[in-house]
């Protein structure tokens, strides 16, 4: 078994209102920045043990779906790299 680092980006699906992003965009605009849109999500790292990188990614897809994101309103992306 080898250890792999899974990195998840979890965000609200397109079309789902993001009140925090909207308020942050407005403040950035008030500060003088040309911020046209802000969406806020989560960044999550999980270290897993797996036989291969592919297997680690499969695990990543599974836990992203089952726990780390709320499929009703969120999407996620996962990337994998070797963990030193």
């Amino acid at each position, binding site marked *: 078994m080898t250890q792999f680092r899974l990195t998840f980006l979890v965000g609200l699906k397109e079309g789902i209102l993001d009140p*925090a992003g909207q308020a942050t965009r407005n403040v950035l605009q008030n500060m003088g920045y040309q911020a046209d849109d802000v969406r806020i999500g989560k960044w999550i790292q999980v270290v897993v043990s797996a036989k291969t990188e592919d297997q680690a990614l499969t695990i990543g897809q599974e836990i992203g779906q089952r726990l780390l994101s709320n499929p009703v309103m969120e999407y996620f992306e996962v990337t994998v790299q070797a963990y030193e």
Partner: protein
Amino acid sequence: MNNDLSVGIVVFPGSNCDHDTIAAISSLGAKPVVLDYRLHSLPVLDRVILPGGFSYGDYLRSGALAAAAPIMDAVEQAAADGLPVLGICNGFQILCERGLLPGTLLPNPSGEFICQWQAVRVASESPLFTGLDQGRVLRLPIAHHEGSYRVAQGQLAELFERGQIFLQYSDAEGQLHGLTNPNGSVANIAGVQNRNVVGLMPHPERAMAAYLGSRDGWDLLASWLGMGENAVC
């Protein structure tokens, strides 16, 4: 009565303890002056309060968006010039985000909002709070989601040495221990001061009458307004 004392109360979008704070300041006989967050300068004032609530919905980080509001430049300048500034709950968070107070307020370890009556002990006498003796225990409400006070490594001893720790969560007898710490704050810290700037998590403006459960907030705010024991009902 201190009719001449004017107290600025900064209203950010989403502030929701502003009405309560205005009522509390009025009942103490001082003159509340509502300050809109878009102001770039302050009128002539004797004190400024950043009230509690959910400025900007507490989005991004509690207090972070309000700390970038235009009026905060003026508040920072006035604080530097010696104007007493008090931040309550979200106001405390804003002052920390702005760097006017040391430390930061993290989410409660439970991950949950907590609203309850809480005993707090005056940790050190302060020239900002005349007549409020060290060791005095006050019964005040707390109501927050991010109240876990933390400082950078090694900074705590310094804060104690300089007498910057103002309030600590305690039991009704003023004893400090883990059981009386509602939110995992380091050293049970509920309020800190930095020269003329003070921040506290409890809500004194909600404890202004016995029928509301406590009148200790009256004593605390009267002391901050320099009315000490002379405040009149």
